[in-house]
């Protein structure tokens, strides 16, 4: 299987805090890769390095390489704005733009790209909302505010917004942590359907979720990548003692 994202000797810092320590990771294309680990282990920071969102935080810096489709996104002359259009991201808390309608939220990224043709925008709204399994629920209220819908719907709206610009990679940072089990199940189903067309990397603190939906799993601890492998293998036959302790809940 072809690798979509490869990190080489990746280190990330917040000021003096060394959050990600020398991570080498190869994420296969058209699959779901879960990153698990205890709070503060650097898993969110790791995926934020993959679309250069880490550097927007004050005093944050990155060393090493992140190669997407053979190109180092940290190479001199590489444009963070271009990379973020190719690598979409969904955050922990749903963050639709509250002053925009559902429709305008979905096409926000397309409008940034200069798309003004309403036929194409209409088509993108329907396609993205269908991909995000939200179309049936909101098709009659596209003019309603992006925050007038439930939390689970808002998160799917954010997924639709990320998908509308047709990224190749979708990064999700604990996308279900603020949602109830029903909304979580909907998002898991949707990710499962999306992996044929996108490379998905999901950070989760929920091991059952990682086991349910991912093809590959990476376990991080204290900023280091402890183990990476096929999800089934990692959960059934962990190679590292630390991994075994974590997944069996005998930790610390």
């Amino acid at each position, binding site marked *: 299987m072809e690798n979509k994202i490869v990190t080489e000797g990746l280190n990330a810092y917040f000021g003096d805090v060394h959050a990600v320590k020398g991570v080498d990771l190869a994420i296969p294309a058209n699959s779901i890769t879960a990153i698990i680990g205890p709070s503060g282990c650097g898993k969110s920071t790791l995926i934020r390095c993959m679309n250069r969102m880490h550097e*927007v935080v004050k005093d944050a810096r990155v060393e090493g390489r992140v190669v997407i489709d053979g190109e180092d996104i940290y190479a001199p002359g590489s444009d963070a*704005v271009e990379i973020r*259009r190719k690598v979409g991201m969904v955050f922990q*808390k749903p*963050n*639709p*733009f509250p002053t925009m309608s559902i429709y305008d939220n979905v096409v*926000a990224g397309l409008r940034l790209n200069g798309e003004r043709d309403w036929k194409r925008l209409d088509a993108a709204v329907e396609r993205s909302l269908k991909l995000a399994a939200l179309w049936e629920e909101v098709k009659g209220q596209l003019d309603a505010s992006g925050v007038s819908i439930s939390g689970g719907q808002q998160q799917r709206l*954010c997924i639709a917004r990320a998908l509308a610009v047709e990224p190749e990679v979708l990064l999700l940072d604990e996308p279900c942590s603020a949602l109830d089990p029903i909304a979580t199940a909907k998002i898991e189903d949707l990710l499962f359907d999306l992996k044929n067309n996108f490379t998905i990397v999901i950070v989760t603190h929920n091991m059952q979720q990682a086991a349910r939906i991912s093809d590959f799993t990476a376990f991080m601890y204290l900023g280091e990548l402890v183990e990476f492998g096929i999800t089934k293998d990692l959960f059934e036959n962990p190679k590292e003692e630390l991994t075994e302790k974590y997944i069996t809940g005998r930790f610390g």
Partner: protein
Amino acid sequence: MKCGDANMNERGTEERGSLQKTRSGLSLATVRKTLGRSGDRLFVYLVGLVALSTLMLVWLLVAFMISDSIESIEEFGFGYLTGRTWEEQKGVYGALPFIFGTLLTSAIAVAIGVPVSIGIAIYLSELAPAWIREPLSFVIELLAAIPSVIYGLWAMGALRPLLVNSVEPWLVKWFGWTPFFEGTPQGLDKLAAGLILAIMIIPTVASVSKEALRAVPDSQREAALSLGATRYETTRMAVLTYARSGIFGACILGLGRAFGETMAVTMTIGNSNAISWSLIDPGQTMASLIANRWGEAEGLQRASLIEIGVILFVIALLVNVFARLMLGRVLKSVHTTGGGL
């Protein structure tokens, strides 16, 4: 602490040892013993009375303004608002030229001051590095502390020559065909007053807008950035729109300040009671009229001036209430400087 010591001396020395151990605890205990519950109640009443007396003060103010302007209100009725003459000999007074002057100069102030303030707010909130942000915010808030007479002096001494020699001749040359720039440059006119007001509202509008921008959650900025927005696009689509009601409130607050400002306007506006759309003609605002005429005013003119005050008071009150409603929780994190009322 002093109070506790004094009580100790009166009550003898048997507790002095424990006083040294727990000074604050003991002084409180001593106060309690001396004054008891009734002292606590006295304290509540005393502080409450001081606080409530401000309500009393407002009531006295309103009562004075109504009672002393009643002569003018009865004489002119609602026609006062549209009356264009202010003549002592005829005993006819009308407020329109001054309402017009206040609105026009305040509009100039907002038109010039608001874009500058929003630019400052965006720079401070979104772009400036921390080592510039703090000192610059401090200096901008300090501008609000400069007495308005100083602004007036600066306008007469430094701004006026610039207006007369360069800015106004240029405006007359290129825009003299519009009604807004007809006439001869004098440098003491509505443009000068509007400019000085613009400078005076900048601290308020900029710092309140800055707080409104800083109240925008980072998750909104991240949402825009992750879609591939540039810094400018992020500010425009995620930050300014989210903070728009706060920024609007800040502008209204600035407008309220411009309405009431007296000293700097009186010094720069040229003090003419004629209604003229030309910005390079002198004019008069409600506040500057009161300041100019109060000394010699008696009888009906005095009542009419106070009625102008009533109108200004009501307008400023409404504007401020509206601004505070718009601002809501944004305002709680900033200290705003009062208007010139």
